[in-house]
């Protein structure tokens, strides 16, 4: 697999959970999530994809939304975690920590001097 395809596949697997993690402590609106993502290298290549992603997670019951007034401009849709969303984020974190440790172990201890 070419390295660019690999990065895309890896991103696809985790992006949803990264968004859920960013909503863990506080509800946020889409633009806010995009700003947070900008500081995370390589996590979000097309910024607009956050919106279909959020809409899909809402359809799946992982997040729900509420409109909030803004100081100026029109009200914004804020996304917050549901119970199922909280659960999904905890499950992912547990799984991810184990998985990362396994991969790290293979590369450091079993991969020879190049590792």
């Amino acid at each position: 697999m070419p390295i660019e395809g690999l990065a895309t596949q890896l991103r696809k697997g985790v992006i949803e959970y990264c968004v859920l993690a960013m909503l863990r402590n506080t509800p946020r609106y889409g633009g806010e999530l995009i700003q947070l993502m900008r500081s995370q290298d390589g996590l979000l290549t097309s910024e607009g994809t956050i919106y279909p992603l959020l809409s899909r997670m809402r359809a799946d019951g992982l997040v729900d939304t509420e409109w909030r007034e803004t100081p100026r401009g029109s009200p914004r849709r804020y996304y917050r975690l549901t119970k199922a969303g909280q659960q999904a984020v905890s499950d992912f974190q547990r799984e991810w920590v184990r998985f990362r440790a396994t991969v790290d172990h293979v590369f450091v201890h079993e991969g020879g001097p190049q590792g």
Partner: protein
Amino acid sequence: MTAYQADQLVSEYLGRLDEQLADVPRTRRDEILDEISQHIAEERGLLHNKSEADLRNLLDRLGDPAELAAAARDDGDESHEAKESRRIGAIEVLALVLTPLVWPAGVILLWLSPAWNLRDKLIGTLVPPGGYLFILFSPALLLMGTGVTNSCGGTVDSGGNVVNSCTGVLALPVWQQDLINVGLVAIVVVLLVLPVLTAIYLARRLRK
């Protein structure tokens, strides 16, 4: 670039996105378009010099409409896809209602639906033998049977005594007639209940 040209650029982008989202359910499509256009409006407000290059960069950062649409469709979770394909639709509801009531129509729908496996379909087809349609015919069959074979008549024998003689079921002793009646009632009850039980079974299989 005039404000008019800028608006054109944006509405062209949203138009392409709308096209790409054609196979996404209406409510979700509206939600995505709504959010994206609000995002563009807010970001445009933040641009220092409202040049065409800035606006084009903004739209480029958002991404290709085809890519956004792919993100709206992509489930990336097989278990969810499997759930979707077994979703309860009009065919399944009709099949459940019609299988006991209008047997052939219900069974055809039952076999058309991907929501049940072969075993469920066989049970749905065979357990209520003919559904309620069969029950409509069965009393008629019984009546025909009794009508033909049962008759009683009195005759006077040589000694002047009236002798009643019967044929068919009525020729049997009373306790045996009662037994047959109880049996018939039981069969009718079973035939009435079985289609309902089958429908309940199929409905439960649907939820799995």
